[in-house]
C-alpha cells in the first residue's frame, strides 16, 4: 500500500479507536461509581464538536506558542503512529515522542498566562518522573531481545514467546505509564480538578478539538506499543481485545483510587519504578530470564 495512504488510514483508525476506548473508559468509571455515565461514543462526538465551536483567545496569551503548541501536540502523536503501527521503527523514537509530549503539556499550560495553566505547568515538570520507569522498561526490553526495533521485537516474541512472561516487572513499569496517561488517573496531577482542566483550561474551540484528537491518538499509540512489545505478535482481534481489556482495567483502577498529591504521586511512581527496576535487573543478571 502507498505509504501516505497507510499513514492516513492508521491515523484515522488511531483517532476513532482511541476516542471509543476513552469513551469506554469513562463508561466503566461511571458504572463502578453507580452512575449511568455518557454513551461510549460521547468522547468522539465531543472531540468533533470542538472543531466547529467558536475559538476565543485570552488577551494574556503568548499567541505563537498558544496556537502552535496544539499543532505540535497533534503532530507528535501522528509521528507516534508512523513510528509505531506504520513503520514499526525504534522504541527510542517513541521515548522521544513521549518526552516532547511532556514539554507540550508544560507549555500549553504556561503559554496562556492563566494561574491554573501555570500550576499545571509546574506539575508537568514534576510528573516528568514517569520518564525514568519508561526508560528502564525500554532498556530491559532491549537487554532481553537485543534490539530496539519494534518489528524485530515482534519477531523475537514469535520465537521465544511474549515478553510479559519473561520480564513482567518491566511490563508493570510500562503499565504504570499507561495508568498515568489515562483520564482521572491517581497520577494525573496536571489535570487535577483544583486546576480546572489544568493545561487545557484556556484552550477553546478548534484548539481544544486538536487536543482531544491528540489525546485519543496518544491513548491508542500507548496501548498499541504496550501490547506489541509485551504480548508478542497479535492480530487485529488480539489488539482490539487487549485495548478493551486495558481500558476496562484502567477505568476500574481510576474509579476506585483518589488523586494523589503531586509529591505523593512522584514518590509512588519512583518507588514502584525502583522496585520493578531492581526486580527485573535481578531476574536478568541471575539468569532467570534467558
Amino acid at each position, binding site marked *: 500500500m502507498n505509504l501516505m495512504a497507510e499513514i492516513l488510514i492508521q491515523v484515522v483508525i488511531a483517532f476513532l479507536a482511541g476516542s471509543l476506548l476513552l469513551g469506554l473508559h469513562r463508561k466503566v468509571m461511571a458504572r463502578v461509581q453507580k452512575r449511568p455515565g455518557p454513551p461510549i461514543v460521547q468522547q468522539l462526538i465531543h472531540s468533533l464538536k470542538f472543531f466547529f465551536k467558536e475559538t476565543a483567545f485570552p*488577551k*494574556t*496569551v*503568548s*499567541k*505563537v*506558542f*498558544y496556537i*502552535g503548541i496544539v499543532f*505540535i501536540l497533534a503532530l*507528535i502523536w501522528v*509521528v507516534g503512529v508512523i*513510528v509505531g503501527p506504520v513503520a514499526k*521503527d*525504534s522504541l*527510542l*523514537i517513541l*521515548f*522521544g*515522542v513521549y*518526552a*516532547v509530549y*511532556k*514539554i507540550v503539556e*508544560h*507549555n500549553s499550560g*504556561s*503559554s*496562556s*498566562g*492563566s*494561574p491554573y495553566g*501555570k*500550576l499545571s*505547568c*509546574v506539575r508537568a*515538570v*514534576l510528573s*516528568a*518522573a514517569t*520518564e*525514568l520507569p519508561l*526508560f528502564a522498561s525500554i*532498556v530491559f526490553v*532491549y*537487554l532481553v531481545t*537485543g*534490539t*530496539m*526495533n519494534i518489528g524485530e521485537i515482534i519477531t523475537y516474541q514469535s520465537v521465544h514467546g511474549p515478553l510479559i512472561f519473561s520480564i513482567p516487572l518491566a511490563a508493570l513499569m510500562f503499565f504504570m505509564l499507561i495508568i498515568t496517561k489515562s483520564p482521572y488517573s491517581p497520577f494525573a496531577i496536571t489535570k487535577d480538578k483544583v486546576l480546572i482542566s489544568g493545561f487545557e483550561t484556556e484552550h477553546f474551540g478548534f484548539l481544544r478539538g486538536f487536543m482531544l484528537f491528540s489525546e485519543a491518538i496518544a491513548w491508542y499509540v500507548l496501548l498499541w506499543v504496550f501490547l506489541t512489545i509485551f504480548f508478542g505478535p497479535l492480530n487485529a482481534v488480539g489488539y482490539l481485545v487487549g485495548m478493551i481489556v486495558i481500558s476496562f482495567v484502567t477505568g476500574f483502577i481510576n474509579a476506585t483510587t483518589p488523586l494523589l498529591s503531586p509529591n505523593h504521586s512522584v514518590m509512588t511512581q*519512583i518507588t514502584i519504578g525502583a522496585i520493578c527496576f531492581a526486580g527485573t535487573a535481578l531476574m536478568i543478571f541471575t539468569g532467570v530470564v534467558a
Partner: protein
Amino acid sequence: MDFVTLGGNLLGTIQLGDIVLYLTPFSLFLFAVLLGFTVLIGLSKPETQVEATMHYLNNTEVKVGQKELKQRRFLAVICGIASAGAMITGDLFNFTLFMALVGILNIGIVSAVKQTSVLNSAFNYGLIAMMCSLPLFGGAAIILAATGTLSLAVLSQMPASPMVVFGAVMMLIGILGESGVAPFFASKAEMFRTAGSPYIVIIVIIHLSSLFIIVRAVEILLLVLW
C-alpha cells in the same frame, strides 16, 4: 550496540574534520523538534502572567519589558541551538561541551529574574550544575583514557571494560545534575511557580533541552556500554 540498532537506519553522516555528525530517524526527530521550538522562541512574545492580588479583589498582571525579553530570548535561542547540536553529534566530548553550555545558559536565563524565590531556586540549581560538571567531564575523560577514543561510532564497537562502565556512570550523574532532572528537578520546578517568574519563551527551552539531552544520553550510554 550500533547506531542502527538504536535509532533506526543511518540516513547519512556529516564529516567536519574529526567531528562526525550522524543522522538516524531518532536523532533527526530530536534535532528537528529542537530547531522547530527554537524558531517558535524567536517569533514569540511572552504571555502576561496573571494571579489574584492578596487581600484585594483585583488581579496582578506581570508584563515583561522589551529589553529584558531580547536578552533572554537570545540566550534561549543559543540554548536551543546547543541542544540541537547535542542531538546529532557523534563525539562524546562534544556532547559534554554542549551539555555544559546548556547548563550555563539555563542558569543565565533564569538569573535575570528579580524575585527572591526564583533566584534561590536558580542558585540551588546552579550549585548542582557546577558540582556535576566534574563527573560529567571526568566521566568522558575516563572513557577516553580507557579506550583511546571519544568517537561514538568507534566506542559502540568496543566491549565495555570496568573503567568504561565507571566513566559512563560518572557521566550519567553529571548529565542528571547539569540538566536538573530527577532527582534534582525540584529546584527547577520551583523557578516557575509564581507570577513574574520566567515566562513561556524561555522556560520552554530550559525543559526541552533537559529532557532531550536525557533522551540522547540514554542512546549514548547504550552505545558505549552494550
